[in-house]
């Protein structure tokens, strides 16, 4: 296995976070309205990170991660609707517990299967939840969804009084904080003995079994962690969207999460993050160019799959890019900066 150095270290996470932080005021001043996408992007990146723990490190393709995203979002929505809870951290915790519980229940069965069966099992799970949200109108509000009031952050900071732009900005940095912490934790997870074991299981399952590894237990744990990430993303998604609807558990969202990770490059730790951030803008730009933007999306997906299987970060391995990197480091040595 070729080692993918680029985008697989802890500093690059910090760099992305810092860039996402600095870029927000810049975008909002030169292209107002475009800055919200950045927030959506980093929140979806959290879900994509969870997805990739399963996909790249464990070798399981989940076509139903929207199940956990939806559960996280509905944890926020239902806790607001029925107990008036608005402290976001507590809501996130509820989302995490529910996602983990669901992952444990489904995973108990699902981790025994691979490939298409695992993908379908996850898809079916998500669709059942979706059916529940849609059909139980009196509990979930059906397709109308549940409106989310402004949350209280850090237990004491009530955001109700903030204006539209002020709240968006505050929430962006709040989400960014979650993102940074979660991404760093994920980096430690994939580079821990646990993470290496997952990779051994993925590449050579029989060898792992021979070494006495309980393969299914490892897979289950990976699924639970992955679900927790998606759940947190769902919970964080609710307040910025102001609305929780069954769409958040629909298979198209699962598809989007898969696509984001592929776009960025699933072989890289940073891939899903870059993918999510690029995707939200790609979607917006494509929508501006043409009303037939799904056509562009579809063609892009196919082109990436055939011609850029390593995704956007795969470009950094091109010779030209490497040459530039060498040039840059030579310059740096020369001038000692």
């Amino acid at each position, binding site marked *: 296995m070729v080692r993918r150095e680029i985008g697989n270290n802890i500093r690059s996470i910090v760099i992305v976070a810092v860039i996402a932080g600095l870029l927000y005021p810049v975008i909002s001043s030169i292209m107002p309205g475009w800055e919200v996408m950045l927030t959506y992007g980093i929140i979806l990146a959290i879900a994509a990170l969870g997805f990739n723990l399963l*996909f790249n490190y464990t070798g399981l*393709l989940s*076509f139903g991660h929207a199940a956990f995203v939806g559960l996280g979002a509905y944890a926020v929505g239902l806790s607001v609707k029925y107990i008036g809870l608005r402290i976001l951290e507590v809501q996130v915790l509820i989302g995490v517990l529910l996602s983990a519980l669901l992952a444990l229940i489904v995973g108990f*069965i699902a981790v*025994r*299967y691979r*490939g*298409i*069966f695992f*993908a*379908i*099992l996850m*898809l*079916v*799970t998500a*669709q*059942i939840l*979706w*059916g*529940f949200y*849609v*059909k*139980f109108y009196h509990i979930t509000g059906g397709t109308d969804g549940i409106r989310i009031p402004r949350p209280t952050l850090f237990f004491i900071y009530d955001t109700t009084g903030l204006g539209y732009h002020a709240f968006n900005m505050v929430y962006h940095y709040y989400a960014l904080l979650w993102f940074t912490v979660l991404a760093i934790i994920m980096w430690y997870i994939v580079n821990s003995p646990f993470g290496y074991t997952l990779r051994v299981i993925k590449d050579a399952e029989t060898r792992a079994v021979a070494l006495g590894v309980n393969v299914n237990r490892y897979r289950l744990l990976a699924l639970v962690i992955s679900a927790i990430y998606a759940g947190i993303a769902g919970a964080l998604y609710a307040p910025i969207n102001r609305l929780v609807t069954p769409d958040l558990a629909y*298979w198209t969202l699962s*598809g989007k999460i*898969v*696509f984001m990770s*592929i776009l960025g490059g699933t072989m890289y730790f940073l891939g899903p993050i870059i993918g999510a951030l690029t995707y939200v803008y790609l979607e917006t730009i494509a929508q501006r160019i043409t009303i*037939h933007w*799904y*056509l562009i*999306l*579809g*063609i892009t*997906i*196919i082109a990436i*799959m*055939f011609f850029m*299987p390593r995704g956007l970060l795969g470009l950094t391995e091109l010779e030209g890019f490497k040459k530039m990197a060498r040039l840059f480091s030579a310059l740096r040595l020369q001038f000692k900066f």
Partner: protein
Amino acid sequence: MSLDTLARYILDTFFFASLISLIVSGLNIIYGVMRIVNLAHASLFTLGAYTVAWITANYIVKIFGSNLILLLVLPLTIAVIVTVLVSLVMVTPLLRYSYGKGDAFQLIVTFALLIIFEELFQIVWGRMPLAANDAFFAMGTVNLFGSPYPLYKVFVIIVAFLIILALWLLTYRTYLGLLLRATSMDSEMVQALGANVIRLIVVAIITASLLAGLGGALYVPTASVALGLSLDVLIVAFVGLVIGGLGSFIGSLIGALIVSIFRTLSIYFFPELELVILFTVALIVLIFKPEGIGGGKGW
């Protein structure tokens, strides 16, 4: 429940099962030969439906009036031809090059193809739903224990039955069927024995497209066709596929029938739970028999 109601329910169940089984068996042929679950398959169903709706309303009715035979046969034939041609241009090459590239790759590529189809329908046929119920009404109704039932739905059930029968004969009574079944069990070995698997793949995709296009063409006189139909159809077909078993011919039929039965039952008893029930059945089947009811034995 009175007799006429019961009879209607049974016929409705079979009608829905007929359409679903046409799609599911197509999905299964492709899966059998290539090990690809083609998510874009339902788009061909929609394509067939759009073609019939468009051609009937714009040409057939205007040129030939409401001649029943022409209304039934002509749009159906054209739709099937269009579907197969489009499949040859768009679906076949993509699937061919996705062959053997891994589950993730294939699922993602076919998903993208589904999106592209959805958008192309919009460009060609606009955003309005299309309908062409002429054949449906021209056929009239049949008296079913005292209340009317649309004859067209019976016609669809019969046509689907004949198609399935032909498919069965093809699979179990011909050399091509033998080859197809062998390929669904072990395509590499078939190749090593001297079969041109790529050619077989093309044949399989065309057959599947034909079935899907026919399904859509049969469906459209009973309802209208709109954007988003592919997704709805795909999801139901998918449940049928899972229940019946991936890559199994008998499974396709069983799956379609079970989906249809549960759908009718849930509409009758718990209309709120229709989708939940369908997916729960699929989940239960996956847990206890992950290869599906008829799965695991090749096509």
